[in-house]
């Protein structure tokens, strides 16, 4: 009796474990966390409850891959959770973990779609857009009816400057599933094409759709604020950044957005304080450079020099670590470092990914290196989609100015300032000076 009972128990327990893991996995996918609630301090929660934030999701998936070490999907989802954690913390150590985890998944199942999408996303984050495109296309071949590979494909095509392909892929993506992920990409594509109102409408839909994590929602709320800012609606932008912070109190992009609002309102000291706090958390060039520029405008040369050194030190370290140069570093060198190095960087960036953003950076580097004729050629390439990015027009205007093409210079500089008079306190000043010289 005892024996029979025991064998029944074993016979049932193991298959049920398989069932439960399958069911648990699927339910986890379908009923996953969507709350910013902090850690639960419930001593009775001895076993994994449904995770309520990315950290809990990571812990839950770690338990799962331990329980089911032969199964690929758990590893793929754990890799995705690490990628999300990078977004939330700025701790790029999670990238390395994500890479190892996706590798684990693909070792168990070379055809695993989620892990392939994950590797593609990771390649994009590392600015290897060609590898990202390959992975995205591979994932789509493996699972032609799914949506997620399209996000990787679209992002890669946009960064590679393949806009006609990107348009087709993105239309297919949003036809298959309108959601935060696809709406926000439609918005960016429209923005790149100069359709600010269409971009705003798509981003509004992305915000309304919401997402699985507060960081994702705060991210699109911030982008919505940026679009309002570019449309000259400072009040609307301020509200959007505030809503982003209400979704995710730790959102650094939203804090940087509020700093832009401060700049637009002429409150440079407040903007400086805010950006200072942001860079203390995360000293990225996209935050440190504007901080230094505000300090320059405020006449705090020593402080600015210190911050600019920070970017340089960071660049050297990254370079030593074999990182890919990106557009931001090329622009930084053009504005605050060595224009010749900027040209070298920008050529690398443009060769790897000939997007309008790369063309803009290369054009600006050439202009700053004293070759405004060539600079203007690339500035025109940057504007070919009809971009309404004030800095693109500023760069084109300055190139035309230096190349002696006064009418175009006046047109482009006025355009930059009319799109957003405070697009950069530092460069707006220069644009106004150049305009005065033209008159």
């Amino acid at each position, binding site marked *: 009796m005892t024996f029979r009972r025991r064998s029944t128990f074993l016979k049932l327990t193991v298959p049920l*474990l398989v069932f439960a893991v399958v069911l648990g996995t699927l339910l986890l996918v379908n009923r996953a966390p969507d709350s910013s609630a902090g850690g*639960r301090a419930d001593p009775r929660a001895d076993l994994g409850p*449904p995770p309520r934030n990315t950290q809990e999701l990571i812990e839950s998936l770690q338990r799962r891959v331990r329980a089911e070490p032969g199964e690929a999907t758990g590893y793929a989802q754990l890799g995705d959770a690490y990628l999300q954690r990078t977004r939330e913390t700025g701790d790029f150590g999670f990238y390395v973990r994500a890479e190892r985890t996706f590798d684990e998944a693909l070792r168990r199942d070379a055809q695993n779609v989620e892990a392939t999408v994950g590797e593609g*996303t990771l390649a994009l984050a590392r600015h290897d857009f060609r590898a990202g495109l390959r992975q995205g296309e591979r994932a789509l071949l493996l699972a032609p009816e799914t949506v997620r590979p399209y996000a990787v494909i679209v992002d890669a095509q946009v960064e590679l400057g393949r806009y006609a392909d990107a*348009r087709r892929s993105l239309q297919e993506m949003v036809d298959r*599933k309108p959601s935060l992920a696809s709406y926000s990409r439609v918005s960016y594509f429209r923005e790149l094409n100069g*359709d600010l109102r269409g971009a705003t409408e798509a981003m509004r839909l992305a915000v309304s759709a919401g997402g699985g994590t507060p960081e994702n929602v705060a*991210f*699109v709320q911030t982008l919505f604020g940026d679009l309002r800012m570019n449309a000259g609606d400072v009040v609307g932008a301020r509200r959007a950044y505030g809503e982003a912070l209400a979704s995710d109190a730790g959102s650094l992009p939203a804090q940087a957005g509020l700093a832009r609002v401060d700049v637009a309102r002429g409150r440079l000291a407040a903007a400086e304080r805010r950006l200072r706090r942001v860079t203390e958390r995360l*000293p990225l060039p996209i935050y440190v450079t504007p901080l230094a520029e505000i300090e320059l405008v405020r006449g705090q040369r020593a402080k600015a020099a210190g911050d600019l050194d920070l970017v340089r030190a960071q660049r050297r370290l990254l370079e030593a670590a074999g990182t890919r140069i990106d557009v931001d570093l090329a622009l930084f060198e053009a504005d605050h470092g060595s224009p010749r190095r900027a040209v070298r960087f920008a050529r690398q960036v443009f060769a790897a990914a000939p997007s309008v953003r790369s063309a803009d950076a290369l054009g600006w580097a050439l202009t700053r290196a004293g070759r405004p004729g060539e600079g203007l050629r690339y500035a025109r390439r940057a504007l070919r989609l009809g971009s309404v990015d004030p800095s693109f027009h500023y760069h084109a205007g300055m190139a035309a100015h230096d190349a002696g093409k006064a009418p175009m210079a006046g047109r482009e500089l006025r355009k930059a300032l009319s799109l957003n008079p405070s697009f950069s306190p530092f460069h707006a000043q220069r644009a106004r000076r150049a305009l005065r010289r033209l008159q």
Partner: protein
Amino acid sequence: MKKLSLLAAIAAAAIAVPLSIGSSHREAPNISLDPSADNTDTYAFTAKNAPGALTVVANWQPNQVANAGPNFYRFDDDARYYVNIDNTGDGRVDVRYRWDFKTTVRNRNSFLYALPGVKGFGDPKLNVIQRYNLQLERISRRGGRTTIRRSTIATKVPVAPSNVGTKTFPNYNVFTAGASRGLRGGGRTFAGQRDDPFFIDLGATFDGINIRKGTGNEGEGREDIAGTNTSAIVLQVPERQVTRNRRAVGSPKAGNSVVGVWASTDRRKLQLSNGNFDTRSHSAVGRRGARTANRFVQVSRLGVPLVNELVIPLGRKDQFNRTTPNEDAARYGKFAIKPELAAVLNALFKVNAPENNRTDIVQALLQGLPGLNEHKGFAKGKAPAVDTLKLNLGTPPAAGAENRFGVIGGDMAGFPNGRRLGDDVVDIELQVVAGFLKGNKVPLGDGVDRNDKAFGDTFPYLALPQPGNDAPGRTEESHAPVPAGGS
């Protein structure tokens, strides 16, 4: 000093992590989760206190905890939420109900959801309020032409808000009673936060202990959904509004007695192309012609519980969610008739679950059981396999206590004849996949038998949402082994 520490931080990050950082390229999220649109559970039953009416519960946004603020759970104002009825059995919608939500923020300068002591929906202390209009749509198809007739049956109904806590909502129960409204043409509607009625032992699976006691049906499972809330829509309408001849159901044998029910969500389509834009555009946009077409596409649906989770392979889920039940047999029939799960169980552990030709599963979950909830007008056992919850409106509600095993437990008013809130669909489907209907009665179960909170006897039936962060989960009490079928 500060500079030094910053440099040290960068050095640590950069040396440890040979990766590029500082990207300004747009790293938009690529999430597979879409909680505001993804349906999680659908229920359809005849309520004991409402004979002659169809009652439907449809849920979105699971795992809500009450302290999630300051942004709380809302329906998506730009999505359309549907409860669909097929009254002929072809898997096409004949009658559907559509909820359109609109959020109002009373004080745009405040990011607060509500101030303490909210008395009613009109109280300005309630800063964020969502309301909806409910439309009834009748779809008719003649000679390839589809006609939709719409009528509005409720307007500006308030949504029961997230239960932030007893300070903000001193009397949440009384307060949200105002979220239940009567409908033009009869019936009631409710939308808003409630306790998630789904129950399962989910967490244990990840520690590899899944069955905590005996064969799985002896209790002691831990209900992991306990204490979490969901965004629910509850609808109760007179049967004559949904039956094929628009008459009340005379008996379980009546030709109009069976309806198929599922919930779905649509989102707005967007066009990228510069030409050929839709002139019905709801907003005039941009000189370059990127238009927001006033068209919608289905992004999620849910009929029979766990079909999406257990039958549809991962690579087909997106497709499943954008297609309609009338295409199910052709697209997904093969996954149900030869369920991977049954094969896995047998290959490894010999529980004698039949692996092939599982017409019993197709019948129980997708076609309806002949003589019970199979649509009338087809030869016995020949109704199309469609993923809808098929409910015979003529089946009287259980006279006494409901049996959580539903039909396999001898209680004909339960799952898969519709689905009641208390039906233990995890245990039922486990046993059905193991071959219960083919005589292979294995007492499988997850050890959780019921929801952590009791359901109400009256509309909207769901339990009140859990306030605050007091979400401990619930452990099933120990009880004697329950044989297969629960009898």
